[in-house]
C-alpha cells in the first residue's frame, strides 16, 4: 500500500500516484478538474482506488464527492484530467463497471416494475434487438434475492420505501456482473435494515474480488465499512488505507471548523 499523504494547507497536490500504482488500481484518476461556470467543484484530483477492496469518498457537503464520481463516468464534462479503470481508459471499460446513482435522481412514478428496472442492467448486453430470455429473467430474480427483494419483482417502483428503492438500484448494478461498482451515497436516507442488507452485499462483492467505491457521508461508519478512504474538499486532502488516512488530523484538514472538536476526538478514539 502506498504511504498516506496529507496535503499541506497551501494546497500541495496529494502525491499518491506513480504509473505502477495506477496499473494496479481499480480506478485511477489523474489531474481531474470539474467546473460549473468558473468555480471549480473538483480541482486537480489525483487518486488511485485499490482493486478488490471497499473505498469511501468522504468530504463535507458541496465538497465535490458526487461531482467527482459523475465526472469519472462522463455524466458531467471534465475540464481536464484522465480516468482509467483497471489500467485502461474508462471509455473501453464500461462493461466492467456498474453505477448506483442517488435514489433522488429519478422519477419513481415511471411506469416500470422492480423487475423491469433490474433488467435495465442487462440492456447493454441485450443490445437493440436481443430478446429477454429465461436466463436473463433468472439472473434478475437472483439479483433481487441478493438484496432481499425477491417478493417485490412485480411491484411498481413508486410503491416502494426509500430503502427498497435503493436496493432495486443495487440489484440493477448486480445484474451487470461488473468488476467495479461505483455508488453515490448508497446509505443516504435508508432504514437500518436496508443499510445492513446493502453492506452485506458489498462485502460479498469484495470477498469475490470485486472493487467497490462509494461516496459516503457518515463518518461514524467509515472505519467499520471501508478499507480505503479518499478525503476531498474540492481539492484532494488525503488518501490511503482507513487505518492511516482517516485520522482526526486528516478529518480536520478536510472539514476545518465544520466538524466539532468533540466529534473528531470520538472518531479518533474509535481508531484505537
Amino acid at each position: 500500500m502506498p504511504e498516506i499523504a496529507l496535503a499541506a494547507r497551501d494546497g500541495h497536490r496529494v502525491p499518491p500516484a506513480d504509473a505502477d500504482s495506477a496499473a494496479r488500481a481499480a480506478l485511477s484518476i489523474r489531474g481531474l478538474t470539474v467546473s460549473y461556470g468558473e468555480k471549480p467543484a473538483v480541482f486537480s484530483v489525483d487518486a488511485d482506488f485499490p482493486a478488490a477492496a471497499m473505498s469511501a469518498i468522504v468530504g463535507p457537503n458541496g465538497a465535490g464527492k458526487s461531482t467527482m464520481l459523475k465526472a469519472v463516468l462522463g455524466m458531467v464534462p471534465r475540464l481536464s484530467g484522465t480516468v482509467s479503470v483497471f489500467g485502461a481508459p474508462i471509455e473501453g471499460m464500461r462493461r466492467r463497471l456498474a453505477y448506483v446513482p442517488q435514489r433522488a435522481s429519478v422519477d419513481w412514478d415511471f411506469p416500470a416494475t422492480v423487475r423491469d428496472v433490474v433488467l435495465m442492467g442487462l440492456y447493454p448486453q441485450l443490445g437493440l434487438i436481443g430478446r429477454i430470455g429465461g436466463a436473463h429473467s433468472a439472473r434478475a430474480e437472483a439479483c433481487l434475492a441478493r438484496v432481499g427483494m425477491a417478493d417485490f419483482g412485480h411491484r411498481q417502483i413508486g410503491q416502494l420505501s426509500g430503502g427498497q428503492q435503493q436496493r432495486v438500484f443495487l440489484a440493477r448494478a448486480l445484474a451487470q456482473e461488473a468488476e467495479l461498482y461505483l455508488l453515490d451515497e448508497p446509505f443516504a436516507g435508508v432504514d437500518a435494515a436496508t443499510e445492513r442488507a446493502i453492506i452485506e452485499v458489498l462485502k460479498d462483492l469484495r470477498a469475490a474480488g470485486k472493487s467497490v467505491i462509494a461516496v459516503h457521508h457518515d463518518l461514524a461508519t467509515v472505519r467499520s465499512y471501508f478499507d480505503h478512504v479518499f478525503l476531498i474538499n474540492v481539492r484532494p486532502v488525503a488518501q490511503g488505507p482507513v487505518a492511516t488516512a482517516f485520522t482526526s488530523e486528516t478529518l480536520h484538514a478536510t472539514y476545518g471548523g465544520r466538524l466539532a472538536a468533540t466529534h473528531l476526538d470520538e472518531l479518533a478514539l474509535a481508531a484505537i
Partner: protein
Amino acid sequence: MLDGLGEALLLRAGYNAALVGIGAALLGFAAGAAGTFLFLRKRALVSDALAHATLPGVGVAFILLVAAGGDGRSLTGLMLGAAVSAALGLWVVEWLARRTRLTEDAAIGAVLSAFFGFGVVLLTHIQTLQAGRQAGLESFLLGATAGMLRQDAIVIAAGGALAVLATWLLRRPMTLVAFDPGYAASSGLDVRRIDLAMMALVMAITVIGLKIVGLILIVALLIIPPVTARFWTDRSGAVIWIAGGLGAVAGYLGATISASAPALPTGPIIVLVAAALFALSLIFAPARGVAAALLRHRRFQARVHRRQGLLAIGHGETILEPFTLRLLTAEGLVRPDGVATEAGRAQAARIARDERRWAVAREIHQDAALSGRYDGLTPIDAVFTADEIAEFDRRIGPPVALGGA
C-alpha cells in the same frame, strides 16, 4: 352521410380512402409509440415548438418548387422543407436553453411563435401568387384527407411504418435515458445522441403527419395516447403498445370520419377521438382512474368508520355519527336504535383485545419498525406471528368481560 361513414370505416369507400385510413392508422401508431418516450422524458412541449416550426419550411419549399418550374404541391418536397425548418427550430430551442439564461419553456415559446408567425406571413404571400391559389397549403395547419393523391397516401403509410420500426429498435436506449439518464450515461450510452434520435423520430412523425393531422394538433397525437395508456398499465413496454394502439384507432377513425364529411378538417377529428379515449380512461381505468380512486377512498373511509364504531361499542359509548351507524346496522352489528347486537359486542371485544395486544407489543418491541406499524387499522396478525401474539395474551392476563356483555 352515415352510409358513407359506414362504408369508409369498413374500407369499402374505395382504394384511395382505404389507403388513407391505413396510412392514418400507421401514423397514429407511430405517434403514440414514439410519443411515449417524449412523455416519459418530459419533453412534450418541445415537440409543439418543433411542429410549429415546420410551417415556414412548407412555405419556402413551395416557393422554391414553383420557382424551379415544378409542381408546388409535391408532398415529398414540402415535407423535406418542413423537416429542414423544424430541425432549425429545434436547434434554436436547444441553443437558447444551453447558451443563454433562458429556460427551455421560454425558448420554446419564443421559437414556436416566431417560426409560426413567419410561416403564416409566407403562406399569405403565397395565396397572392398565381400558382399559389390552388396550392391548398392551409390544409397543413389542420390536416385534410379530401383530395389526397394515392402516392401521398403511400408516402404517409410507408413513413409511418418506418417510424414504428425505428421506435421499436430504439426502445431500450430511449427507455433507459428517459428513466435514468445518469445511469444510461454510466453504461456508455451517449445520452445527447439518444435524445437527438428521439427528437429526430418525433420530427419525422410530425412531418409525415402534416398532411393528415396538421401541424397545430400533431402534438396532441403524440402526447394524448401515452398519457391515456399510462392509466392502464405500470410498465413502459405496455405503455408503448397501448399508446400505439390508441393512436392507430384515433388516426383511423379520424381519417375515415373526415373522408365521409369532407368539410371537416381531419386533425381536429383525430384529436377529438383521442381525447374521448383519454376521458374514458381518466374516469374508468382500474387503478389510476378517478372512479377507482373514489371507490378506494370510500372503502377506506368505511373501514375507518367501522373500526371507530366498534371501538366506541367496546368503550360502552354511544355512536353518534350517522354514517358509522348506518354501516354497522347494515352489517347487523348494531340495532337501528343504536344498541349493539350480540355479534356487534363480540366484534367489539375482539377489537378491544387487539388494542390491548398492540399496547403490549409497543412495550416489548421497542423496535419502531414493528410496533410503528400500528395505525388503528392494520390487523395485529398481519404484523406479528401467532406465538408472539400468544405471548402478548399471556401478559395481558385472562380476558375481561365487557360492560353489559
